[in-house]
């Protein structure tokens, strides 16, 4: 057996600097070159644009928004990243995370070659392996599991990566029904709420022409989606009315015209009361309602009791405010949006919240109107060439995550990842044996971290594909190192009539591969190579480009290709893909299930005396649990804090930066306090993604605390969404 290494031995900084000329060069240029005007340019090494400098256009992967990037490369080293002005997702700008892409590229904590576990699982002992060995080992384990327990005993997880379609091919070819996306931790209630109202899980929003916006869980100043964040800033600058419902004074709230600190879990009371006012005062779009919706009369009956006065008692927003906003909103229609959001308040009633938001929009008649909701853009997107492969075998067995046998309304493509985890532990309806995880970090993302670690420990086999030793990779048996996004190809992306490419800016620094090739080579070792029918990345991209009169080299040079004479088709904007073909104010599917078919009030639990709602959310400087090891981002956001209202801080005798102990039914963390007037006194907020347990993330390890250590596992039975905010905690001075 080859030598066993710990993380420190594998990736010591000293060793790294010695071995990587590139990084040494990166540190040496720059500040030494400042000279007075007379000698400008003569000795400025970093700034000349000689033949040794090149620019490469590609796509960012610091989050999943897929912004266009132009990388500046000098002497083979990536110097800076700048936004691509031709990309609609970011219009030439990059957020802090996008700007920091260079740091992670040259991070000493990159995984530089395949690793196979050499001690107990989670011991942090590894040995170096060749790709052939690591892939053969993975394939052998997957084959063994399939032969002995059936393909269903293997779970395959990945979320929203650009090569996701090829991951899905691997999954389907292998034949397991167990597909784990992380969507149920994010916006299942929004997608199902809108799906069962409009037949469209995620309509667009016409920010630029909107006159009145209500956000209830879309914090664009901190959960940056680059072009939409820019749109938010422009709306505020133009004086558009922006109302933010949030128990916490977020940065979006600080820019808004009105901040309403709603009680967690009660947003739907606010919206039901708005609907009450709009119906009572006949402020809705009667023509739209008559022509395109079903269930209006049922709604009238349902919301009768949901008066603003009733809602005030629930959501703690003044009845007069609700009434005023309802009238203002209706007066500005149809250029108004009650935003579909991403997460709302993360309660089991969030599906009802999203349904009431969807219905409020319908009453405004803002569908496909300037400044309103935008119908599905899928049909107005250029179609890439598809690869032909044999038909996939039928997946055998029911899914571990309860879809659809426990959660009949959750689409298969979303799943319920927290239930998948729970059923690894329960062994029901059957025992899972293996897990292949591509670029997810369930240890930090799913509630009850310890349970997720226990689940990993219970399995026969765990393989992780990642660029760094995520907390989940730390518990793996094999780590297949993916090339960094600036070193690799992924599948092409289309946005309307444009095709974009992610391409290597420089050759991989280490012995890593693109996920396209990892999936492909793994499929080959499994005897399933025909399902991923491409020789290499260039061959795949060439096949995807086949329908268009453009060569791959041209696409690579320009970074994008614009399909000529592409006509947007709006003829089907008003064909709703619901059971009735109408906008379903009353949901056919809910009625079939024997449930209340119109949006309704569902009383959420509230914390007992001495307990607080635990809220979690994003910061602009980090992406979920993926970027906390990036030292440039740690410079601007080094650690998460527990936000405490001043009165609570006084009560327990703490000031900002003091350590506090936060405890829930399932866990306990120590975290620094941030004392503020910008939060409801009954809430404690923390940014997610900190508190890493992997010692392979040297800069992130031990920083801050993880919300996953505190969160209880509570699932909305309709949408499958994880009701994160139904965790109540105590707080005391540490």
């Amino acid at each position, binding site marked *: 057996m080859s030598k066993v290494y710990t993380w420190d031995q594998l990736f010591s900084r000293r060793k790294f600097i010695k071995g990587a000329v590139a990084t040494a060069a990166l540190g040496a240029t720059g500040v030494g070159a400042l000279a007075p005007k007379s000698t*400008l340019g003569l000795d400025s090494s970093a700034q000349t644009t000689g033949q040794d400098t090149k620019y490469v256009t590609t796509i960012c992967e610091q989050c999943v928004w897929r912004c266009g990037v132009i990388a500046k490369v000098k002497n083979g080293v990536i110097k*800076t990243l700048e936004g691509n002005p031709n990309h609609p997702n970011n219009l*030439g700008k990059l957020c*802090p995370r996008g700007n920091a892409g260079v740091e992670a590229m040259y991070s000493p904590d990159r995984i530089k070659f395949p690793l196979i576990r050499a001690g107990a699982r989670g011991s942090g002992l590894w040995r170096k392996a060749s790709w052939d060995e690591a892939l053969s080992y993975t394939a052998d384990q997957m084959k063994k599991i399939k032969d002995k327990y059936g393909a269903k005993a293997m779970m395959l997880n990945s979320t929203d990566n650009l090569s996701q379609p090829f991951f899905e091919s691997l999954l389907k070819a292998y034949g397991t029904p167990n597909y784990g996306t992380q969507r149920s931790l994010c916006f299942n209630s929004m997608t199902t709420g809108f799906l069962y109202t409009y037949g469209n899980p995620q309509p667009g929003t016409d920010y630029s022409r909107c006159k009145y916006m209500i956000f209830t869980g879309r914090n664009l100043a901190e959960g940056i989606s680059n072009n939409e964040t820019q749109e938010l800033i422009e709306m505020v600058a133009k004086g558009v009315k922006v109302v933010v419902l949030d128990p916490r004074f977020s940065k979006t709230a600080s820019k808004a015209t009105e901040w309403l600190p709603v009680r967690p879990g009660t947003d739907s009371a606010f919206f039901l009361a708005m609907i009450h006012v709009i119906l009572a005062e006949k402020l809705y779009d009667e023509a739209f309602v008559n022509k395109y919706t079903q269930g209006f009369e049922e709604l009238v009956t349902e919301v009768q009791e949901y008066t603003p006065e009733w809602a005030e008692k629930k959501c703690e927003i003044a009845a007069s405010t609700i009434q005023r906003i309802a009238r203002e909103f209706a007066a500005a229609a149809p250029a108004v949006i009650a935003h579909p959001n991403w997460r709302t308040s993360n309660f089991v009633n969030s599906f009802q919240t999203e349904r009431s938001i969807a219905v409020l929009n319908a009453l405004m008649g803002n569908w496909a109107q300037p400044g309103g909701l935008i119908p599905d853009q899928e049909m107005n997107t250029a179609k890439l060439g598809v690869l032909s492969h044999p038909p996939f075998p039928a997946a055998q067995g029911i899914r571990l995550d309860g879809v659809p046998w426990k959660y009949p309304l959750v689409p298969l493509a979303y799943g319920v990842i927290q239930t998948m985890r729970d059923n690894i532990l329960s062994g029901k309806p059957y025992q899972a044996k293996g897990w292949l995880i591509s670029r997810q970090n369930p240890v930090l993302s799913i509630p009850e971290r310890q349970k997720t670690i226990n689940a990993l420990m219970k399995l026969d086999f765990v393989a992780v594909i990642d660029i760094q030793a995520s907390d989940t990779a730390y518990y793996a048996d094999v780590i297949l190192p993916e090339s960094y996004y600036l070193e690799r190809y992924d599948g092409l992306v289309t946005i309307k009539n444009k095709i974009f490419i992610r391409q290597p800016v420089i050759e991989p620094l280490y012995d890593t591969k693109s996920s396209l090739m990892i999936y492909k080579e793994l499929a080959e070792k499994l005897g399933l190579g025909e399902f991923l029918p491409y020789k290499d990345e260039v061959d795949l991209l060439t096949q995807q480009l086949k329908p268009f009169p453009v060569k791959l080299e041209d696409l690579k040079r320009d970074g994008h290709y614009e399909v000529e004479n592409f006509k947007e088709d709006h003829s089907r904007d008003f064909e709703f893909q619901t059971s009735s073909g109408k906008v379903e104010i009353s949901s056919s599917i809910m009625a079939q299930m024997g449930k209340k078919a119109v949006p309704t009030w569902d009383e959420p639990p509230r914390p007992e005396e001495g307990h607080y709602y635990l809220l979690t959310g994003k910061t*602009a400087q980090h992406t979920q649990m993926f970027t906390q090891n990036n030292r440039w981002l740690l*410079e601007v956001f080094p650690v998460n804090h527990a936000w405490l209202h*001043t009165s609570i801080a006084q009560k327990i005798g703490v000031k900002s930066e003091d350590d506090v102990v936060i405890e829930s039914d399932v866990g306990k963390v120590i975290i620094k306090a941030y004392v*503020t007037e910008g939060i409801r006194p009954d809430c404690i907020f923390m940014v997610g993604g900190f508190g890493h347990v992997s010692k392979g993330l040297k800069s992130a390890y031990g920083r801050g605390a993880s919300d996953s250590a505190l969160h209880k596992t509570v699932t909305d039975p309709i949408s499958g969404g994880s009701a994160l905010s139904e965790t109540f905690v105590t707080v005391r001075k540490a």
Partner: protein
Amino acid sequence: MAVRMGFVIITSRCIDCDACMVACRSENDAPIGHTRNWVKSSGVQGQFPKVREVFQPGNCMHCENPPCVAVCPTGASQKREDGIVIVENSKCIGCKYCIVACPYDARFANPETGKADKCTLCWHRLEQGLEPACVQTCLGKSRQAGDMNDPASIVSQLIAKYPTRVLLKHVGTGPNIYYIDEAVPEIPKGK
């Protein structure tokens, strides 16, 4: 008229995302632990639920009467003809007088070079016809830079149209960052 380079910063358009800080670090290789620019927060002011918070980006003010230049014993700190205040590294002896003299705390001692370090208004980018890195990346178009003496520049047009303020006016440094706090619906065209 002589060129007078400076910034206009529209605080109402800043969301405190700190993209400017990371872009500057990337462009200028600022060492970890130090930064050439910043975004400061007022903190949450007022009482729940009547609160507000304002964000104020900043960096070297490229002052008209820069105290850092006056105290520099070697002439390393200097104001260029175009108004940009720089440190000529070969002349800097690392005495740190300038760091103490700056009322805006805009300078630091670079541990890698031993020299005083600060915002250069990305003059190397200006020469190539590019905006400073912090301006280029700003999602809110909050940061603008240009020639304050050219009436056609974006900064001059903004100063002409909106009320502005400068920081520590009474110190007499003549700072060349002009802050606009009110809403600016549209950024004027210009250079």
